[in-house]
């Protein structure tokens, strides 16, 4: 009975070659590989796989709890599996079962959350370990680094090439081949790296990582012992594991008894798991995952593994081909010179063969003219590489994944990891189905396609960006409990979400998704859920927000052949509820609530516009009309409502002007309200002001008529409102104001002149309000008689007026009005101002 432990570098082509040679020579009758024992059953499919692939194990109760063990063609582990298959030798995984590992991790997570205080100590312990895992993960790379090599692969090759049996006086080396010598040397150096006096033992002070390592090694030792003892013991066992573990599995294992190992593993109740194979990519290999040691240059390793000879020249030739494909000059003469340079560089650096570093430096100087930009292309496509593995159709997977694969085939959508845009024309049957598949997968959290915005809404085009990630396989496994086909599973997910939906808007959002995913069965469920929530929802703002997606479906759904009948019924009932509920909902709102309400009203207005049912639009406008004219309503809402009616043409321009004037003047005592009304009214755009000089002059007059304090109050909200206008609008308004505005006249569009007086402006004429007159210091002068004005006071106002209205020319407008023509038109404004002045001085 003999056990040979081969310590390797995960994903190292040098290791892989050495392992292949060693296995051929040892001809073991049992191969044990570092990996999850759950994967043993999946080994029968090795022949149906094209690397890079990954063995994945996941918990049955929560498939997202998963781990991957990636294998590239140049992985020593993969070569061991291939050897086992080719030679008919039983091959088994011996690492700590994933179920155990997961159980331990879950236990740790629980204790962590239980004892928050203990966590701090744990963290520092982990931090202290920080440099160690690097050493543990890639000890050979670390050795290479210590020896001054930046490329561990070359270090390894040097080891292979330079270590000759004669020159290594290892004890008991007699008759061993160079390859086995090599592995013996690796074991030696690892034993030196690992402090022999610090053999693993259960020690609470060590980090979780170290404890896990102990368990893994204990399990591997037990597995090796089990295989080498008993009746059916294998005679020649080859064990393949990360170099770091070699000393723990050989030599000093005697110090650790079987009982101690069993003790370590006692009391762990494994989680139930399942395994399968998933295709992997070189890009994923370069990230840290699974076997810990992420490789930075899988493409280069692949090249090292596949290139039969002339490694450097072939590499540069491939670089040149890549550059030419990108329309960059790369002549054969340059390739020759680049290879020469790489070799000279290797000589300067005193290395036997040029490695990736030399080749890259040489390519930069020789082929890229020192420009790092093309080099980035080389790195992405060659050094990392875009190789994608494949898993044969017979490899077992969940029914849902199989259904996805069938659909992909039928719809001619190949899952590729490279991002690529897809444009669907929804008038075509095929594209409609594709769209449905992508939307359904999104419901299952498989974001294979990400929707991109097309040029406009409501067209028949739909834009996607497709990129298939290997982890989607897991998401599919996780979603498999929802159903065996994509359609069923997506429907089930929808039903679940309706149940859990917090509010109406969440369900309507879902509704839209369901329509997009063309899930007829789920549609009815959503509709029922919506109907029920809508009936119980008293919040009109919610209803209005919910209406928007429904209206979109109402408008565009028929492109997909959705049964819009369902939607129509629901939209109608929602619209009715909104129209009924809007006016009361607009009463007694504070400013924050009014902001939200205005946003909801805007959304709803757009939605009503989309549905474009005249009857409902009329009802909507009636409801908005009530909100606009509501006494005691929030001025912001009233302003916006007026604007909606105005934009819809329901209110005549004159009526709008009247309301504007009223809103501005009614606020004699509260300019802030007037400003908010104006903010609501103008909120959407300033175009109305820019286009309609009459309206602009109304606002201008109002603004100019405010006294200092009132102006200060109004300034902030108005500034905010105007800041939202587009630049050209603001400029236009500015130009209008500068070029002079028509004064508001008391003609038909007005009521303006009379309105303020009617609504009881203080100091108004006709003795309507005796109080100000009575307490006014100037009260001696009856307000009604124009000529009896206190000219001194009027003169005192003039400078302020000039400041407010701008340079002479506009300011004296009131004064230049021919006296006597329409005294009524000038006086109220002036008196209103005087009245304000008086009120002010009283205060």
């Amino acid at each position: 009975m003999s056990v040979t432990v081969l310590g390797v570098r995960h994903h190292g082509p040098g290791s892989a070659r050495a392992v292949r040679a060693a296995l051929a020579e040892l001809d073991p009758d049992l191969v044990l590989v570092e990996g999850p024992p759950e994967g043993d059953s999946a080994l029968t499919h090795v022949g149906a796989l094209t690397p890079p692939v990954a063995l994945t194990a996941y918990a049955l109760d929560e498939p997202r709890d998963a781990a991957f063990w990636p294998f590239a063609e140049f992985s020593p582990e993969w070569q061991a599996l291939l050897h086992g298959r080719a030679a008919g030798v039983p091959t088994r995984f011996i690492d700590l079962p994933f179920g155990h590992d997961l159980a331990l991790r879950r236990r740790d997570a629980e204790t962590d959350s239980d004892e928050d205080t203990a966590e701090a100590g744990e963290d520092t312990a982990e931090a202290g370990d920080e440099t160690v895992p690097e050493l543990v993960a890639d000890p050979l790379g670390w050795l290479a680094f210590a020896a001054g090599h930046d490329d561990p692969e070359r270090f390894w090759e040097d080891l292979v090439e330079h270590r000759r049996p004669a020159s290594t006086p290892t004890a008991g080396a007699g008759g061993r081949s160079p390859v086995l010598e090599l592995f013996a040397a690796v074991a030696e150096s690892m034993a030196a790296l690992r402090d022999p006096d610090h053999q693993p033992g259960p020690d609470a002070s060590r980090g979780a990582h170290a404890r896990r390592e102990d368990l893994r090694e204990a399990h591997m030792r037990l597995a090796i012992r089990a295989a080498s003892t008993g009746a059916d013991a294998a005679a020649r066992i080859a064990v393949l594991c990360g170099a770091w573990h070699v000393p723990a599995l050989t030599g000093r294992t005697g110090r650790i008894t079987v009982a101690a190992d069993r003790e370590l593993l006692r009391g762990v109740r494994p989680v139930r798991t399942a395994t399968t194979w998933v295709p992997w990519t070189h890009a994923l290999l370069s990230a840290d995952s699974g076997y810990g040691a992420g490789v930075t240059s899988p493409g280069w390793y692949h090249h090292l593994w596949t290139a039969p000879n002339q490694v450097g020249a072939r590499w540069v030739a491939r670089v040149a081909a890549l550059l030419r494909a990108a329309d960059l000059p790369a002549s054969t003469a340059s390739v020759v010179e680049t290879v020469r340079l790489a070799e000279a560089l290797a000589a300067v650096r005193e290395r036997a063969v040029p490695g990736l570093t030399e080749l890259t430096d040489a390519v930069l100087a020789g082929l890229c003219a020192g420009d790092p930009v093309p080099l980035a292309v080389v790195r992405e496509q060659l050094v990392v590489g875009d190789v994608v593995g494949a898993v044969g159709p017979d490899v077992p997977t969940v029914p849902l994944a199989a259904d996805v694969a069938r659909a992909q085939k039928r719809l001619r959508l190949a899952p590729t990891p490279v991002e690529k845009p897809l444009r669907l024309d929804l008038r075509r049957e095929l594209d409609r189905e594709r769209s449905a598949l992508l939307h359904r997968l999104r419901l299952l959290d498989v974001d294979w396609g990400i929707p991109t915005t097309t040029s406009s809404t409501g067209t028949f085009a739909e834009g996607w960006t497709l990129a298939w990630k290997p982890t989607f396989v897991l998401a599919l496994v996780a979603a498999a409990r929802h159903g065996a086909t994509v359609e069923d599973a997506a429907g089930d997910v929808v039903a679940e979400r309706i149940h859990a939906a917090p509010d109406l808007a969440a369900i309507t959002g879902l509704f839209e998704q369901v329509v997009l995913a063309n899930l007829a069965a789920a549609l009815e469920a959503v509709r029922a859920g919506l109907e029920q929530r809508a009936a119980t929802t008293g919040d009109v703002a919610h209803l209005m927000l919910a209406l928007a997606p429904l209206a979109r479906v109402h408008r565009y759904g028929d492109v997909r052949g959705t049964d819009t009948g369902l939607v129509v019924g629901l939209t109608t009932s929602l619209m009715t509820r909104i129209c009924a509920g809007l006016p009361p909902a607009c009463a007694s709102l504070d400013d924050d609530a009014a902001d939200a309400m205005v946003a909801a009203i805007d959304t709803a207005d757009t939605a009503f516009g989309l549905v474009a049912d005249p009857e409902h639009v009329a009802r909507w406008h009636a409801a908005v009309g009530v909100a606009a004219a509501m006494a005691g309503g929030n001025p912001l809402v009233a302003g916006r409502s007026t604007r909606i009616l105005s934009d819809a043409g329901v209110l005549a321009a004159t009526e709008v002007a009247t309301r504007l004037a009223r809103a501005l003047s009614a606020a004699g005592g509260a300019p802030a309200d007037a400003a908010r009304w104006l903010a609501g009214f103008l909120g959407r755009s300033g175009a109305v002001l820019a286009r309609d000089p009459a309206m602009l002059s109304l606002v201008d007059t109002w603004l100019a008529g405010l006294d200092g304090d009132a102006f200060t109050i109004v300034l902030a909200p108005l500034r905010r409102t105007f800041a939202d206008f587009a630049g050209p609008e603001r400029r236009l308004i500015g130009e209008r104001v500068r070029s002079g505005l028509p004064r508001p006249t008391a003609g038909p569009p007005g009521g303006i002149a009379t309105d303020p007086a009617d609504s009881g402006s203080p100091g108004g004429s006709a003795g309507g309000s005796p109080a100000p007159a009575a307490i006014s210091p100037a009260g001696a002068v009856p307000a009604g008689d124009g000529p009896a004005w206190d000219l001194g006071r009027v003169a005192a106002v003039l400078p302020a007026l000039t400041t407010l209205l701008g340079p002479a020319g506009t300011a004296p407008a009131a004064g230049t009005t021919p006296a006597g023509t329409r005294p009524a038109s000038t006086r109220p404004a002036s008196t209103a101002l005087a009245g304000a002045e008086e009120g002010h001085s009283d205060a």
Partner: protein
Amino acid sequence: MTLAPPSTNTAAPDAGPTADSAPLLRPHAEQAYAGELAALAAADTRPRPPSWRLSPWAVVTYLLGGVLDDGTVISPKYIGSRRLVEVAVATLATDRALLLLGSPGTAKTWLSEHLAAAVSGDSTLVVQGTAGTSEDAVRYGWNYARLIAEGPSPDALVPSPVMRAMTRGSIARVEELTRMGAEVQDALITVLSEKTLPVPELASEVQAVAGFAVIATANDRDRGVNEMSSALRRRFNTVVLPLPASEDAEVEIVTRRVADLGRALALPDEPPAASEVRRVVQIFRELRAGVTSDGRTTLKTPTATLSTAEAISVITGGMTLATHFGDGRLRAEDVAAGLLGAVIKDPSADPVAWREYLEGVVRDRKGWSDLYRACRDLDDDARVPGGA
């Protein structure tokens, strides 16, 4: 990269051939560092390419510095990436032409001179590229008196530095390659690919001896240069020299070069105030990058290159001022004038950038008030006479 302590064994203004008379203003690299080169040659046991004075390893050591087995300290000539120097040396070892590309003041010429000195022991075979450089300067010219008297003969031929380098198997340097006219540049193509220089007038040719190589420098920032033809370009291996990577590296370069130059200018052997050097380097780096070193304030970038070479000249200028007009200690006011001159190259835009920097950054920086005052005084002086 580890840096050797500043060397003191290679002072060498007296190493030149004219040691008896006044010292040379600027000895060639092979003169200034003759001691180091000899020590390297003695210690160098590695194989040397044909005609090379040193092995590639020794050339890299000469450029990057180090300590030899016998204890000789080799001062670093180029402070920067080892990778770049290795690529450059390896290029020359393959008899390929080397193109050093970079912004002004990134030590292109400096590196090329030292490479030539270390490889061939001779850095003087230089063709300076200008708009007026003719093909004769690259190939060969004629001694017209002899040409007319005797007709074409090898004696009447005046070889160019390139031709001489070919016959000797040494390195020819072409400075500012892209400033030459495109057709003059292309005269190099035959030399670089065939390694021969035909002389049709004599129906003969000059064939390059092993060891011949060309180092060209070119500027990638200048406007109005002549783009290299792709035929010529692909005959070069290109090494792009970057600006110094870190402030510390740049301070080190400036200090070292200022010390060398100070010696050459016979300034007193007092090292420049380290704080002043650091300040100048920081100002240059900040204005170059358009952001302060703490990353908090963005700055206007002046049109000036603000290279390390200019930082060196600001400091040496300041030291000269301090020596001849002050008490020999480098102070803010000595540096200020040079600083202003280096930053303000474009009279319309740069003063704005400089004043913004002065008022926005320099004024509020702790311990920089002396510099601020010095710059302000200068600024005011400059503004009053020209103020009209």
